[in-house]
Every structure is written in C-alpha cells, then in structure tokens.
C-alpha cells in the first residue's frame, strides 16, 4: 500500500539520498541538505498553521511504501507563488503589426516578463523514483496535493500553476537560456539555476531580466523550438497534470522556456469531480467486488494535520453517501467510521 503524508523531520536523510540522484536544473525540489532541511521545516510550520491564513505556506508531501517504509517520492504545493517576492514568468503576447499602405497585417509573438502568476498557488518539487513512473502511486502523489487543496480551499488561491523543466541537452545546456538569460546573467544555465536555487520570485530577476517584450522571431531557431518544450524527465508530471485539467499555453519559464501549466480550480478533476463521503467500515462482501464493478479511487483525509491519502478499489461512488474502506486502509488514513474523506476516481 502506498501512502501520501506530510513530510516529517525524520524524512530528511531519505530526501537527501533521493536528491543526490537528481539531474541538475531539471527538478524544482531542494537539493542541498541545508535546503532540504529548510523545506522540511517550512512544511512542518505550514501544516501546523491556522487554517484561515493563506500566504507563506509551502506544503511538502511524501509518497511512502507503507509496507516497508521506503520513501518513493515527494511533491509540494505553495499557498502563493509570490509569498517571498514576485513570481516572474514570460507571458506569450501577440503584437499586431499593421500597414494599410503596404497591405500587410500580421501577428508577432513577443515574450513579456510579467508577474501575473504571483498570487497563484504553485505546485512544485514533484519527484518519483523511476520504477514507479506511470504507476497509480505517481498519480496519487501528484494529485494528493490538489485533494489537500480541495479539502482546504481557504489555504489556497482559486488558480494553480506548475512550471515544468524545459528542454536541455545532454550537457545541461538550454538553448532558450543561451538566446536570452545568458545575455543578461552572463553565466551558464546550470550556474544560474544553482545561484537562484530554482527560484523565480527574487528581486534579482527584475534587476537582470529584460523589461521590454522579447520578439520571438529574433530568438535563435533552437530557442524558439525549446519554447514550451518539456524536459524528458518531466514528462511524467506533465502527463499527470494535463490529465488533471492543467493546460499550457500562455506562460513559459523565464530561464529555460519550459511550459507553465495553469488552471482554475474548477477545471481540475480533484476539485470538480471530488466526492466528499463518509467513511464506512467495509463488510466482507465489499472485498468480493467483481472486477467490472471495481474502480480505482484516490482517497484523502479532510484535515491538515496528519493528512493522508491512498489508493483503494471501490464500487462506483458517484451517487454514494459513504465509501467503504477496509480496516487496513482506515488505519493507514487514521480515520474512523463517519469521518469525512475526499474521493476522486483515478
């Protein structure tokens, strides 16, 4: 059984080990032991914070194999991308060029440094060990954050986004960075990412990045091709999030040009199709569900402290008042008969 739960201080060694295997510049999760410690401490404070404040919180979740305690992955969600500054991205604008006398009218794309996403809630730090890619537990990890948000909407914005790593070559070079960021930062992509620790909400960005629209036709072909391209290692979260209801279109990352997926909460499955049900201890025959009647559901507890989520098989719940859970699952989720849970079909 796989469980998603808030990170604990005791997870730090396992997270450090996990981070040691990460590709530079691709993942948004903390990589140095010090950064990991800070992230864990912030998450502990966030889960413990009163429910009516939305701001600095950044919640870090762990995917764990409950049978052996192994840490399989991590994922985070921040209440507000701009809690420590202004979140910058490039907005893909269209500028209309018109000349009546030459009878020419056409559109030019231009990238504008903008702060439009500052107040959005931000998903980040998604990582799952390779042998669990494309498994239900990867979906559980990605979605558990949103189920948490769906249970506690007062802690989050109505809009969500996630910035996924953009295209880099085998040497870690980003063609988008070469055409843009390098000219202002005067350093390599990976060096810049290390220096800013992956952040997009720091003042140095407005100090260094261009304030005027960047005309896309003036970028190199390689940079244009990289715009909105997701890094191979981020295809798993890209697919999961797209299925969830996120869409990439208007914004891209200012460093590597990677896609920024965004959605209003009403477009997200966890919000729009989540079912709030009461727990009911499963009778024996519930276990004998015929395969054709059995569906995979993600179940999450309706509480911030000791939040838990897992995967269960159940009959269709669309018109149900309760969800039948086995004792084992109830123990894992730390719920009792009559407790509220949120169920979303996988």
């Amino acid at each position: 059984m796989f469980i998603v739960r808030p990170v604990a201080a005791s997870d730090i060694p396992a997270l450090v080990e996990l981070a040691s295997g990460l590709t530079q510049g691709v993942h948004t999760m903390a990589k140095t032991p010090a950064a990991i410690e800070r992230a864990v401490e912030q998450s502990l404070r966030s889960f413990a914070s009163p429910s009516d404040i939305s701001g600095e919180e950044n919640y870090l979740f762990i995917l764990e194999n409950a049978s052996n305690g192994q840490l399989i992955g991590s994922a985070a969600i921040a209440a507000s991308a701009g809690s420590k500054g202004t979140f910058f991205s490039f907005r893909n604008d269209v500028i209309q060029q018109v000349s009546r006398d030459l009878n020419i009218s056409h559109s030019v794309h231009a990238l504008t440094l903008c702060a439009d996403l500052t107040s959005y809630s931000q998903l980040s730090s998604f990582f799952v060990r390779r042998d669990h890619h494309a498994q239900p537990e990867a979906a559980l990890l990605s979605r558990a954050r949103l189920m948490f948000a769906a249970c506690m909407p007062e802690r989050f914005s109505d809009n969500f986004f996630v910035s996924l790593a953009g295209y880099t070559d085998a040497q870690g070079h980003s063609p988008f960075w070469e055409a843009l960021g390098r000219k202002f930062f005067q350093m390599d992509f990976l060096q810049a990412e290390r220096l800013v620790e992956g952040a997009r909400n720091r003042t140095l960005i407005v100090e260094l990045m261009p304030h005027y629209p960047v005309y896309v036709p003036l970028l190199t072909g390689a940079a244009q091709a990289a715009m909105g391209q997701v890094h191979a290692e981020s295809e798993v979260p890209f697919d999961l999030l797209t299925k969830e209801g996120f869409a990439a279109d208007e914004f891209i990352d200012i460093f590597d040009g990677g896609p920024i997926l965004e959605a209003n909460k009403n477009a997200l499955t966890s919000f729009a199709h989540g079912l709030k049900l009461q727990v009911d201890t499963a009778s024996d025959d519930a276990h004998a569900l015929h395969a054709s009647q059995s569906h995979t559901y993600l179940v999450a507890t309706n509480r911030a402290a000791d939040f838990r989520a897992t995967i269960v098989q159940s009959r269709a719940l669309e018109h149900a008042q309760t969800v039948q859970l086995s004792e084992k699952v109830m123990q894992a989720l730390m719920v009792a008969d009559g407790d509220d849970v949120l169920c979303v079909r996988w």
Partner: protein
Amino acid sequence: MIVVRAIRTEDLDGLMYLATQVGDGMTTLKPDTTMLSNRIAVAVASFAEQIPPEQRDYLFVMEDTTNGKIAGVSAIKSAVGLDEPFYNYRIGTLVHSSKELNVYSRMDTLYLSNDLTGCAELCSLFLHPDYRTGNNGKLLSKSRFLFIAQFPHLFSEKLIAELRGFQHPDGSSPFWDNLGRHFFKMDFSRADDLSSLGKKSFIAELMPRHPLYVAYLPKEAQDVIGQVHVDTAPARRLLEQEGLYYEGFVDIFDAGPVLQARVNELRSVRTSEVVQVVDVSAPAPAAHAMLVANTSIADYRIIATDVAPANGHIQLNAEQQQALRCSVSSAVRTMSLNT
C-alpha cells in the same frame, strides 16, 4: 570655370540629364520630369525666401561656365519628418546589474524613434563622372556648409546626413536579414525599392516598436551597426571633417549611420570668415585651396580657388568676381577647403 550656385528654373533639363546618370540607390534624385520640376520650383521659392524656412529645400548645381553644363547637384532640406514621420533607430544604453549575483551588464538597445524630426538634412549629392577631378567633389559637398555659415538663422539647431549602410557584395544587408526581414518577409532590395518609392514610413510602422537589445542580434548584424557601405566611406570622412559625427542614430533598414552636428559646431560656422574683395595686385605669399562664396541668398554662388586672404581682404580676378557676381569691396565668405 566651375561654380556652384542656387538652382534656377531653367536648370531642369540639365538636372534631368544628371538624374539619368545617377543609377539606383538615390531616392531623392530620380529621372522624373514632374518630380524634378516640382522640386526645382520648391528650391527656387526657397532661395527667393517665398516659403517658410521649415519648408525649404535648397538645391545647388555645379555649372561648368565654359559650356553651361550642369555637372553636379547637392541639397539641404530644411527640416525632415514634417510631412511624414522620419524614423531611425537610436542606440541607447540599459544597465542591468545585481549586487547579489555580482553581475553588471551594460547593454546597447535599439529604440525606434522620430527624434531627428525637424533637423536639416544634407542630401541629393551627385557629381557627374566626367567632373570627378580636382576639388570638384569637395566644392560640391562643402558649398552647403558655407551656405549654412552665411545663413545660420535659417537652420534648425541640428544638421544630419544619412549614409548608406554596410552591404555584402551581393547587395544583401546583414542588419536587414537579421532584423527587418523577420517582420516583413521581404528581402532587402525589395524593402529598399519600397523605400525609394517613399514608403519608408509605412515600413517603419511594421518594425518592432519596443526597445530591442542589440545582443539579441547575431554578431554579423551587431557588427554592421553604424558602419557605412564601402563606397560611402570617402563621403563619411568628408562630412566628419566638417564637424558631423556619429551619435548613435542609424537607418532602420541597413543600420547605416546618421551623422549629425549642432549647426554652431560646424567647422564652417566656427572658422569661415567674411572678407572684402580686392583686385589681384600681387601673388599671394601662402595661397592654398579655399572656398569663396558670395553673401546673396537669392543668387548664392561659390567657387574653389587657391588664394590667401590677409587683413580682411581677398584677391579675386575678374573671372572669379564674375563667377561670384561680386565686385571690388563686396563681402565674400571664405573657408579653407581642407581642415
């Protein structure tokens, strides 16, 4: 004798013949009788001071008095950009610095601007190949500077000259190919043709309007900003001798430099002198090449000759006095031909 003088209505045929010799690339001197006679009419009214100063277009012709031929032409337009917008890119500077990262980037930027609106412009210089000898080229070009020195009140604060930008031998422009072409999908020669047809401002409407960092352009395009066409290098040096300089304005198509000067900084304004004509009496001890012009606007005339003004006087022979329509004790303005 070679004299440069204010154009007259009857110079149309001579100017028309000259225009047929120009070839491509000069937008303001096309062999079109209607266009040229209109232009002469404006020029005649300009020298006659019958139209407001900012509408004037002073056209000078070089005449070979031995045969009456029109050997060359040059012009000063009083003010550009008052009929339709006059566009340039201006090179500016933006500094991006972050103390935190210890990064300091000083970036050149291109601003699409009409900053030179209202400036006087030197233009339409053409000398017939048969007359490209001696000091004729210098006389034809520099005649305009002495004119300005004589009538500085007629000119706005600034004087400019647009110079043809760098091109490869095949006629392509690295600046256009890396900037303009992305916004027009036409090649340089086509854009240049449209420009010749007076459609430059329409093209400017399609150029990117937001400031551009020069660093976005490939190196080959950056390298030609402010560089002249190889054939234009001598003209550039000549204008620079007279006090014009490059101050970061370039053509929006080929990035050729616009040279500029404040009128009161021109060599002619600073160093030309008014002296009195006397008959030739003795060989001048230290004669050197000078420009000598009369002080009439309506019948402005100027020659180049070896002479040495001294004590406020200048020795001119009868032929020279006749060429300048002046006589003994007339005031003339002089300046050394070379710096």
